[in-house]
């Protein structure tokens, strides 16, 4: 089996009194494509966002290539928490890329500038080299002819593909997709899913939160049904989506009646 790239141990996340994640143990192996499904508010986004530290875990560990992120800090009362330095988090985020539901492109930069930004500012590549890498990724998502357009001139689907190219350009070890098609008009969903499928075929390791169950069925290597802050049911797409063992999973799938394989 391939090595574990990303791992969580006992990951918990609370927002004040609300316990959103309650002890998540996750192991992501190189080349795996994990679809995370679950009801609205079940903590899918929170889980992804803890993996690249857009949210700080309340408890538990995140490990990249077996190395725990952050430094343990022992308190006077005996509790041990983890301290995360900004520099360490910047390094993690270069290795764990994220694509957001709302794209979050930089509106004052053109398409190519958006994709070059991380390469220039974070990786400090020379302009020509950054441009080359950015072009390659834009090709991959089929947007090589829109280089000098500003995001506002693009359709939602095109914007999301630029956002995918922007994340890919950093050459992350893992890609996180948080409902990448949920804010798109139905006719634009396909082009974004096609781009993601291309990455899948190239062997990109990814975690994907999605309501596109048909897509998850065909593309994922593993499906996780998240409920009540824990993994309620996990397994192959066939096992979870076609032959769910738990009542809760069945009810969720039934509510996605439009889902066909």
């Amino acid at each position, binding site marked *: 089996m391939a090595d574990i790239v990303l791992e969580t141990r006992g990951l918990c996340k609370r927002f004040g009194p609300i316990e959103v994640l309650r002890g998540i143990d996750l192991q992501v192996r190189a080349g795996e494509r994990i679809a995370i499904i679950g009801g609205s508010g079940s903590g899918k986004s929170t889980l992804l966002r803890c993996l690249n530290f*857009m949210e700080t875990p309340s408890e538990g560990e995140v490990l990249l290539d077996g190395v725990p992120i952050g430094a343990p800090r022992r308190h006077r009362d005996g509790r041990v928490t983890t301290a995360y330095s900004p520099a360490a988090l910047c390094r993690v*985020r*270069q290795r764990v*890329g994220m694509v957001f539901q709302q*794209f*979050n492109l*930089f509106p004052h930069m053109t398409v190519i500038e958006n994709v070059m*930004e*991380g390469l220039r500012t974070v990786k400090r590549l020379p302009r020509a080299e950054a441009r080359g890498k950015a072009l390659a990724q834009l090709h991959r998502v089929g947007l090589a002819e829109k280089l000098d357009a500003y995001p506002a001139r693009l359709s939602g689907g095109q914007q999301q593909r630029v956002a995918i190219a922007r994340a890919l350009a950093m050459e992350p070890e893992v890609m996180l997709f948080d409902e990448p098609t949920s804010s798109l008009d139905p006719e634009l969903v396909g082009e974004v899913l096609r781009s993601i499928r291309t990455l899948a075929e190239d062997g990109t390791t990814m975690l994907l939160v999605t309501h596109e169950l048909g897509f998850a069925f065909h593309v994922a290597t593993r499906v996780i049904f998240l409920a009540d802050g824990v993994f309620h049911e996990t397994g192959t797409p066939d096992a979870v989506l076609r032959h769910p063992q738990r009542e809760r999973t069945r009810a969720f799938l039934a509510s996605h009646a439009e889902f066909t394989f």
Partner: protein
Amino acid sequence: MAYEWDFAIVLENLPVLLRGLGVMLQLWLSALAFGLAAGFVIALGRMAAAAPLRLLARCYVELFRNTPALIQLIWFYYAFPIVIGVQLTPFAAAVIGLSLNTSAYAAEIFRGGMQAVPRGQWEGASALGMTHAAVLRRVVLPQVLRLMLPAFTNRAIELAKTTSLASVLAVQELMYQGRLLSATYYRPMEILTTVALIYFMVIWPGSLLSAWLERRLARHG
């Protein structure tokens, strides 16, 4: 009774007034530069993760915005030296007072602007591994500096007028020279009118610029 204007006095003393204008411009530009720089730092304090830092920055802003600029200047000339044990020149005290006063207002302009940038922009940028400073420099500020420009030009105009308060510290700027000359020659009418005109000619273009920027922004959004 007709007043007999005598502008010969003004012409004769024009070099003195222009020297005053020079000092005024020095005061203005240095206080503007320091004020903007300090204001940016204070704005960061206002948005810091650490609550004590936020409170401190907030107190600073409220203190300077809710006391008269005049008392601030006088305080920095007469009281501050007692605190630090070094007597300041009137000019230095005036620059410090005006800078800090300006920084409190500038901080609020910076803060308002930066908070107008959607959270998604911060997230999109930091998800690439950009540092806090890089996000500010590359993503946040470029999007809002333009929007903040009219507010900054307004502040610069206010500051230009406020520099005249430095005359009470005997900083030899335009207002000071005007008062001295009118007391010397008993010709306040001609001299103070001229002083007002000089202020007007320096500040008015700024107002035009500000109004133009505001119109342009309103059109282009």
